[in-house]
């Protein structure tokens, strides 16, 4: 907490939770969240593409081994849950898993490191520097991902079952009587909407809470170091787990969308 003794803890935390923003209202863009998100996506694609270009079915190199472990893990997860034929789901799951893992891992970057680096390089006063580096602690990012998954759920539901089949699925269950079809429709619509909402909010909630606790720890002075270490170590569990859950639920939802009743 070196951004100035004149700041109270509350001001310090509020400052750190504010995004670097251009534009106003709905047209605003969080440059830090979106920037780090795209940066992490590019890191993922650059590494994986460089391996894919040189991929050999003979004796693999060490990097190829590591990448193949991740790809094999995702492939196994997809094959154990999704039994149809779809060339999109496995790469989609891989992208979600690795990208979210990398975005979540920004949580390990000490909360004051980036603002101070920017201060050191550009000379801007710390109070003017807004930098919230964990993209998945920004609901825009998690809802963006969940919205993409939701669109795919709707797309495959209609593609596999047809518009009629999809509407039938929404209206004829759980209650079989025609008079209850409107109730069914409301229930099923809520279920449908709950899927992307829970996906996005789970990821956002976990990472936002993690970030908030890091900020709280940063306000306690000298003793923050061991506590910070413990909380970071705990995130060894949280970060991959949240990435895995997002990936797994995406696979499950898409496999449900493919199921024809």
């Amino acid at each position, binding site marked *: 907490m070196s951004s100035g003794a004149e700041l109270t803890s509350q001001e310090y935390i509020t400052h750190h939770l504010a*995004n670097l923003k251009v*534009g106003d*209202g*709905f*047209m*605003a*863009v*969080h440059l830090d*969240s*979106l920037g780090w*998100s*795209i940066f992490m*996506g590019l890191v*993922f*694609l650059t590494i*994986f*593409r460089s*391996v*894919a*270009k040189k*991929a*050999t*079915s*003979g004796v*693999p190199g060490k990097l*190829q081994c590591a*990448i*193949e472990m991740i*790809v*094999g893990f995702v*492939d196994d997860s997809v094959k154990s849950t999704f039994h149809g034929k779809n*060339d*999109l789901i*496995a*790469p*989609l799951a*891989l*992208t979600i898993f690795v*990208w979210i893992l990398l975005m979540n891992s920004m949580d390990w970057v000490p909360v004051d490191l980036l603002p101070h680096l920017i201060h050191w390089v550009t000379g801007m006063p710390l109070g003017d520097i807004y930098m919230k580096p964990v*993209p998945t602690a*920004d*609901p*825009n*990012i998690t*809802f*963006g*991902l969940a*919205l*993409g998954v939701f669109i795919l759920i709707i797309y495959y539901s209609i593609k596999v079952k047809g518009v009629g089949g999809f509407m039938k699925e929404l209206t004829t269950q759980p209650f079989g009587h025609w008079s209850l079809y409107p109730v069914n429709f409301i229930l099923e619509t809520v279920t449908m909407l709950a899927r992307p909402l829970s996906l996005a909010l789970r990821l956002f909630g976990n990472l936002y809470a993690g970030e908030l606790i890091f900020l709280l720890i940063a306000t306690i002075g000298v003793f923050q170091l061991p506590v910070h270490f413990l909380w970071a170590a705990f995130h060894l569990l949280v970060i991959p787990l949240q990435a895995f859950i997002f990936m797994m639920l995406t696979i499950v939802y898409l496999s449900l969308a493919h199921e024809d009743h």
Partner: protein
Amino acid sequence: MDINMTLVGQLIAFVVFVIFCMKYVWPPIIGAIEDRQATIADGLAASDRAAKDLELAQEKATAQLKEAKVQAASIVDAAKKHEAKIVEETAGKAQVEKERILAAGHAEIETERNRAKEELRAQVAVLAIAGAEKILERSIDAAAHSDILDKLVAEL
């Protein structure tokens, strides 16, 4: 919560990244993995086959060895029988030969003895005459006394 265009930006990035991953990242890597898995599976199957072949070959070799031993034993048996037969035949022949030679020897001895007897007889006659001449101090007319001599010779 502050929802704004960041969401749209993230959605676009998501779509682009997934499409890139689907086109250029996933297929080569999973292809390499599956190719290698196939190669390894083939290798394992081949080694299994080779092990089975080896087992079969060993069984075959053992069987052949056993057969060869049986054959060798039978050949040895046959050879022994043959040998015994040859020995027997040879012994028989030798016996026959021995008997023939003995018989011939006996016959020869008999002939020789007879001849010697004849000779002796003749010589005895001559000796007898010579002895008689000495005793009588006179010549005996061999022709006149040939009957006596013949009698004498016959008595020998």
